[in-house]
């Protein structure tokens, strides 16, 4: 697979991400796409740790560690400061987890994009509060075990559809991406960088530790999320123009669930129910994109 990006790396070895960390891969691809003329706002999340303990930093670009709930607000401030300095070159990027995006950071994010601040907000989604010990978030999918949805109390609520929430703000660009599809991810990051205003990237990033999966399967599972329609790859321009970027093989969702420890308790019936929800969501997306089922 050849990536149409510089061979240049903007990240160092020796970071403390878990073996097989999908979030580390996501960051690596994003940096390869955006280059080093960027500033990263990093609200509390696993990546706050991966980036390195003071005085280390694994990233070759400036990073501002910020409070958990402030990804949108700090980015707005940084952008304003760059404007005052006359810096038109630097791209402002918020890099936050799903907890920091779907939940606690949502108001700051909503405020920033409502003002159409010129920045890229990236949510790397590992579907729980991983850094603090696998607590469920509103991104945790239906059916998942977490430490706060343990045993028979597994989560029986849907995952929040964050992209649609952002699309509702009518921002210039919102897209999903996945670490198993680097070309697509890189293309979308570059596209976001070329657009003025608020851009939102929702990147699927597997978590071996929190999902109870073998580290070597991070990418395989990420790919399966797309192939089963659980995590479709699509983009939305100006809140209205939907494009589905990849037509998946449409494997049954069980292919995805059976690979992961966090879903082991699910019964055939549960899986059927989930399949229905996934089919429903996919049908809805097809409708929005004006496409037909295959």
């Amino acid at each position, binding site marked *: 697979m050849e990536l149409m990006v510089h061979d240049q790396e903007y990240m*160092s*070895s*020796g970071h403390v991400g878990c*073996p097989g*960390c999908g979030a580390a*891969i996501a960051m690596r691809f994003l940096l390869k796409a955006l280059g080093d003329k960027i500033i990263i706002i990093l609200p509390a999340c696993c990546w706050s740790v991966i980036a390195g303990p003071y005085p280390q*930093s694994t990233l070759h670009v400036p990073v501002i560690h910020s409070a958990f709930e402030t990804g949108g607000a700090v980015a707005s401030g940084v952008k304003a400061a760059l404007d005052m300095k006359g810096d038109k070159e630097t791209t402002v990027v918020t890099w936050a987890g799903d907890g920091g995006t779907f939940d606690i950071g949502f108001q700051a994010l909503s405020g920033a994009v409502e003002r159409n601040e010129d920045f890229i907000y990236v949510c790397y989604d590992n579907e729980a509060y991983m850094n603090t010990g696998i607590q469920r978030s509103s991104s945790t999918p239906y059916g998942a075990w977490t430490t706060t949805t343990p045993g028979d109390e597994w989560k029986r609520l849907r995952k929040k559809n964050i992209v649609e929430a952002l699309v509702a703000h009518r921002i210039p660009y919102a897209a999903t991406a996945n670490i198993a599809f*680097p070309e697509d991810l890189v293309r979308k990051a570059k596209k976001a960088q070329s657009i003025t205003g608020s851009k939102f990237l929702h990147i699927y990033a597997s978590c071996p530790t929190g999902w109870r999966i*073998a*580290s070597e399967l991070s990418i395989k599972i990420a790919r399966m999320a797309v192939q089963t329609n659980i995590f479709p790859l699509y983009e939305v321009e100006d809140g209205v123009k939907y494009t589905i970027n990849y037509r998946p093989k449409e494997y049954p969702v069980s292919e995805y669930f059976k690979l992961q420890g966090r879903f082991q308790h699910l019964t055939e019936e549960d899986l059927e129910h989930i399949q229905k929800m996934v089919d429903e969501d996919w049908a809805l997306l097809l409708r929005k994109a004006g496409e037909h089922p295959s």
Partner: protein
Amino acid sequence: MGEKAEIIIADHLLIPRSSQSTESNKTGSWRFLRPRYDEKTAPCSAACPAGEDIAMIEMLTTQGLFKEAWDTILKENPFPAICGRVCFHPCERRCNRGEFDEAIAIHAIERFLADTAARNEFKSSLEKQPERKEKIAVIGAGPSGLAAAYFLAILGYACDVFESMPEAGGVLRWGIPEYRLPVSVLRSEIVRIEDMGVRIYTGTSVSRDFLSNARGEYDAVFMGCGHSRSRKLAIPGEGLEGIEEGIVFLDRIRRGETDAVKGTVAVIGGGNTAVDVARSVVRLGGKALIVYRRRRQDMPAFEDEISMALEEGVEIRELLAPVRIDRAGDYFTLTVQAMRVAGEETDGRAAIEPEVDKADEIVIQKIFKAIGEEAAEEWYNPAERGKQRLTLGNSVLVHRDDGIVVAYGGDLTNDTKSVVHAVASGKEAAMALDVFFRKGFHAIQQELAAYMVGNGPSLSMETYMKGRRSERNHHVVAYDEINIDYFNLAARITQPRLLIDERKKTFGEIDLKISANLAIREAERCFNCGLCNQCDNCYLFCPDLAVCRDDSLQGRHINYDYCKGCGLCVVECPRNAMVLEEEGQ
């Protein structure tokens, strides 16, 4: 309010700033599994009797490196242009891609590369070993003898090849019909062998005492005389005038001596000779009827040949055993006994027995016998006695009391009588003789085992000569070791062929050339089982930036200072060119 806002710029920003890299954290210490590059063996190459490095050939083809791909074939097989045409390609039956959609058309790509080499007059870049003092006589310039001479020449030996016929090639020249193998193709392959210093003495028969007198002149002899005498039917009437041997008929055609064939002709037998005869009959204007004792699926002839024969109008009458032949004027009556299936032989073919009271008569104008061939002279067969005797996968070696070694190969020793098996014999014998001269007879068997492709019996000359292929793991890559997520369904190319109507009229080559485009597209379907094709997945997906590109042949290495052993690279390698092992093993 109303006043101009004053911007206060602090002298020092009172926030801590990190200035060091994380590279001082040697996260490799977390690792308990260790990934490593580990190229393995593709099943096709193990199934190829000549042990061709098919995965590599396909890979080079996709890169447009046709010369390099052709050279790669030549390391293991002197006859790409011949095998690309006439080989029954057992490789394709074992192709992993066959489980995914359809096997790679390996033979079509081989033929394409050979055609390309011919068109561009490529000179092979084979490296020869330094000259050796020993000299070897090769009896028979058929595929096994020529292959033996070729590989012996590569290993530095002087070879004299003796051929009784006026031209070299054996079955390739006098047996296989022109529509499968044009004579010009054969000749150019033979010229390449002669260019390596091999001397071929045509029109030179060798008699029985050659072996006894060889000592002094030669240090070893390779016997590749083939099977050229038809086996007898052993039924009444078989000696009647007008009943011809199939191989004699084929030989006459290849000398340009045949006339038209009229009426219906019976061809008795089920092997390749029978099919070749039947198809030649069609081309000469006759109607051919193959009469075979067992069922069609039991015929030893190659499946593709049988189905093409049927397309051309050859009829197969199965489960009929000839019992006698009578002549009535211009016609023959072939009396046949109906047979029925009664179980299975050890080789999987049907066991048969006569069906009581069911005989039939077939009236035809001519009969060809083609129930198989045997050695034309008894002494061609492997000698039973000697100081030492060794039966290998495709050859038999006899260490005579007088000290010379006689190696027997080709049809004389092989169960499957095919060109590529003959090549395998020649190669095996060449390697065995080399081991004999260097280390003695006792060392042969064990030594050769190390040069097997996968689990053998195919051998690799490249490995023997310590080429890059010798680093390959013998593990044969299975289908479920391929990461098929990286491949999309794609149909196998369809071989362009002469129209059936044209085929019936001429001996012109049936299979037509394919374009470079088509060949590349087909080669791109190949998984390259076990071989790194530089796809870069391992590099790309490493979360720890521990896969580093470099200038080595592998193109990359793993930095164990930082590799945490997550194993992603190994799983995401589409073609199993890596391995994950327990640390400290």
